[in-house]
């Protein structure tokens, strides 16, 4: 066989060319990666400098005002908290429960597959469509008005598919051998779920939940749809109160004619970003902490 002539005879020049191509590509790929980081930096620097004049404690403790100096996000911040206090339990109970059902109990048939496909597709449906749903279902048909309840439920429905999908993923990534260990001890299905599945899936579920909650906190469009664009100078007292939330407040400031309000909007954006980055960091922290193990 080796009597034939050698076809592959890597000569110096050709090798050099391939290696420098590789080096050039590496630089191009790196620049592309860096681009995203650079835009992020520009964006953050910009809103921080723009909002710098209004970044103080008053921003957090004041209500909105016609006067930029006195404007604050108290109502919006607390409104966001109120809305989340509806969204979180509803989305988590429905989301995790559905994920457990689909992963652990549902028969593996066409119908289940259809449901799963449907849910994962809903995760990609634009938020504004959920706004339409909230407007029709909660605000109008169920007569909740533009209340915290309507807003919270709308947000819950919006993130529900995402939570279902990420919880399913978390459950699915539990190694089969953990189930086997439990079953081999004579555990029942529910015991397995309680003692093996939930503890092991919690970090993953939590990560997904925090990330989707942070999405909900940053969303404007669905709440705009249900008519949350308002001037409010009080803190909601119940889930039936009217409310405003941070992104809406930012949007409303940004639509003011005065340049000062653009700066207040930027200051509000900084606060919103800090909240979101903090939530993301927590989620990433959880993910890193638990992905190390095995």
């Amino acid at each position, binding site marked *: 066989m080796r009597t034939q002539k050698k076809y592959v005879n890597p000569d110096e020049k050709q090798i050099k060319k391939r290696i420098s191509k590789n080096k050039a590509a590496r630089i191009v790929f790196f620049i592309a990666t860096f681009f995203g980081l650079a835009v992020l930096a520009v964006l953050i620097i910009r809103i921080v400098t723009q909002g710098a004049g209004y970044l103080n404690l008053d921003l957090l403790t004041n209500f909105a005002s016609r006067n930029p100096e006195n404007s604050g996000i108290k109502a919006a911040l607390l409104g966001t908290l109120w809305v989340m206090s509806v969204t979180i339990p509803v989305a988590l109970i429905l989301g995790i429960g559905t994920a457990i059902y689909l992963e652990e109990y549902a028969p593996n048939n066409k119908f289940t597959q259809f449901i799963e496909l449907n849910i994962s597709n809903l995760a990609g449906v634009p938020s504004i469509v959920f706004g339409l749903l909230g407007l029709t279902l909660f605000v109008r048909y169920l007569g909740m008005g*533009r209340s915290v309840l309507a807003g919270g439920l709308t947000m819950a429905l919006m993130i529900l598919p995402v939570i279902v999908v990420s919880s399913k993923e978390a459950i699915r990534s539990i190694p089969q051998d953990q189930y086997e260990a439990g079953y081999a001890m004579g555990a029942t299905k529910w015991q397995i779920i309680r003692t093996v599945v939930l503890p092991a899936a919690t970090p993953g579920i939590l990560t997904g939940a925090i990330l989707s909650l942070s999405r909900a906190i940053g969303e404007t469009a669905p709440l705009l749809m249900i*008519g949350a664009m*308002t*001037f409010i100078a009080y803190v909601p007292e119940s889930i039936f109160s*009217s409310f405003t939330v941070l992104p809406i407040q930012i949007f409303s400031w940004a639509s*003011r004619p*005065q340049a000062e309000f653009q700066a207040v909007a930027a200051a509000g954006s900084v606060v919103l970003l800090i909240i979101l980055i903090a939530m993301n960091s927590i989620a990433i922290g959880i993910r890193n902490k638990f992905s190390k193990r095995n």
Partner: protein
Amino acid sequence: ACGNETTDNESGSENGDTTQGISGSVQVDGSSTVFPIMEGVAEEFSIENPDAQVTIGVSGTGGGMEKFIAGETDITNASRPMKEEEAAMLEEAGIEYTEFNLALDGLSVVVHPDNDWVDSLTIEELSTIWLDTSDVETWADVRPGWPEEEIELFSPGTDSGTYDYFDEVVLDGEQINREAALSEDDNVLVQGVMGSENAISYFGYAYYAENKDNVKVVPIVNGEGEAITPSSETVQDGTYEPLSRPLFIYVKNESMKTNNAAYEFAKYTLEMSGEMATEVGYVALEDSIYQEGLSKLEELK
């Protein structure tokens, strides 16, 4: 409640060592033109009555009327008088209401600050610019000698009272130019004009007042043939016409009876609106009109 500036004792009233103030919730919605006035009123009202919950939406006059008819709001703001259809629907819904004058606005026509050719416009010229049926496309089509650049139109949305008023006075019920960008967000209009030398738009005087550096207001030729720039004086003395218009609130009579907070808020509004109107760039009415309104309101209680 009184109309004094109380910004300074905010913390005092929160601590509750001044009078208890009013509690309860008030739903207000409607005109974006009136919004700056109402926002100021609501802010002061909330400072004096920290337990009161005043919500002010910005749905435009038409959108506000819609909610008012649906019974969702206690007070609705309007930058035009109520339409007959709206009144009919309210009657059908069994909602009684009362109209109050709040202030005057000079609907301001604005162009880009670098636009150095437009020195004044007549109502006819305005309508040729804005009507869909007219064949005016460029500034040169409006007046010879003006640049041959296509005019960019930015108009308040069709739900707004501003649009309705403009429609009545300038468009005369005809179709607005289909190239016009419509927006309920007045700032979009400001941005639009700021962004193009050939743009033209119109909106409430308050928004112009806030953007004097960014846009240029166009004097409008009135019935006397004088080109008048909108200002407090020209609006109040009636020389800026026909684009001066009154601003209103409509209160639901029943709310005035049953909802003390709504009543107090309405009262406070009438007391404060003159001051607020001036502060945010509109024109206050004569004091006697507010007094008249207050006594009308008193009767509703």
